[in-house]
């Protein structure tokens, strides 16, 4: 059902956990629907220096969270903001159609964390 890349990120997820004093946190989803994604970022000089996630969800949700953290680590905020759900799915070399919404969650949670960071800067 899942390709090798998805399985790899699911079996060995990157960047799991929390950050001490994060600069931005974003949470999306609802346990009732079977998925909650929580992403935290640390920003240094406009660059995402660290990013961690926690996810309650299916394998696709875990793999997408892991992938999105890997993609944006080291990116500028401006670059990271532009990372789309499709980009996450593409980096995972595709997800089954009924699992596409899981990748949506990952990019959305990241965007929320970035928004929170930006709010704090004002």
């Amino acid at each position, binding site marked *: *059902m*899942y390709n090798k890349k998805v*399985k790899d990120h*699911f*079996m*060995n*997820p990157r960047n*799991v956990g929390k950050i001490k004093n994060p600069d931005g946190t974003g*949470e999306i989803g609802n*346990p*009732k*629907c*079977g*998925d*909650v*994604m*929580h992403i935290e970022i640390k920003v240094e000089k406009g660059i995402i220096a660290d990013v961690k996630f*926690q*996810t*309650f*969800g*299916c*394998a696709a*949700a*875990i793999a997408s969270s892991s992938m999105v953290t890997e993609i944006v680590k080291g990116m500028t905020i401006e670059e990271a903001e532009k990372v789309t759900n499709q980009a996450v799915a593409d980096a995972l070399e595709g997800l089954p159609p*009924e699992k596409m919404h899981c990748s949506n969650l990952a990019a959305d949670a990241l965007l929320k964390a970035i928004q929170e960071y930006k709010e704090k800067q004002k």
Partner: protein
Amino acid sequence: MKNNTVKSAEIKKIYMDHSATTQTDPAVVEAMLPYLTKFYGNPSALYSIAEESKKAIDRSRETIASFINASPSEIIFTSCGTESDNQAIISIARLKKEKGNHIITTSIEHHAVLHTCDYLQKEGFEVTFLPVDGYGRVSAEDLKKAIKPTTILITIMHANNEVGTLQDIKTLSSIAHKNGILFHTDAVQSIGKVPVDVVEMGVDMLSSSAHKLYGPKGVGFLYVKKGVPMKPFMHGGDQERKLRAGTENVASIVGYAKAIELAKNSYEAEAIRLRNLSRYFVEELDKAVPDVVFTGHPTDRTPGHVSCCFSYIEGESVLLMLDSLGICVSSGSACTARSLAASHVLLAMGIDVTIAQGSIRFTLGHENTKDDIDYVLKHLPGIVDKFRKMSPLYEK
């Protein structure tokens, strides 16, 4: 988190999904083969190889009928459990339309019954889906209250596929009969595991499927008590006393009877063995993993059936990790593993929807041993722990 990959040499194959389907018993395969290679004649034909296939169907019907205390003429072979359920429910609905349009079932049926009832609802039938208690049992009182003058059929499953709970069919069917209502039961998950006697249970119709009891896939039967009307929904030849047209699946029917014959000789001892194994499994799992919610009735359930929810995590991830270790289990119902909704059975039992997302079902069978369980117990706590540490719902 890294290095969770196991060396392939360590990987075993441990099948613990016997409620989804079973491996066809080698003796069953052997019994079937001559009816594919040698006696392949159409049972309706007149030459001798056809005569042999016709006789084989008759013998199979006798074996199966006697196992459930029915007469051979009360057995209609079908293509699967789903067809049997559809045939029973739709047939009665159509035939009894003049008397009424109300059907009673439960909220925990297999989709073969639930979706058939939904279909009839769209046609204008009224359906009551009875609630269940926390163990997944229907109450006789609720059934009595649901009965209306327009009720024409009550259909309640014998054993539930997701949580294993058995219903007191005898009590429920006697309520139906006191009110002059026909009673059907889906016994797909119970035949070959617990006693099934149509007279003792007092049912008018009963569905079964061979692949759940070490028989082949794609063959089932519907028991229809003598005198209960039936309307075919496959039209064509005169097979199955004109109730189910289509050339008989001879080899599978023979395999079905062989599976029943094997079950007849062994199921009681096997039930004791499986109950001991699952008791050990539950006790050890409960010790090894905190916050496990075991679902279904603790004792009134099919042998070897262990179902539970791991709080704070989602079932699919556990299932896939177990798969990477060669362990086959299911999450929720086998048929719904691809859909996103929590199991309708667990929700009907009042289990919190978040907890229900973490459901896993282990259904043990012939080839499972205590070693298999120990292998699962060795890996499962670490897997659950890994996903809990990853879960934003788990704060510890």
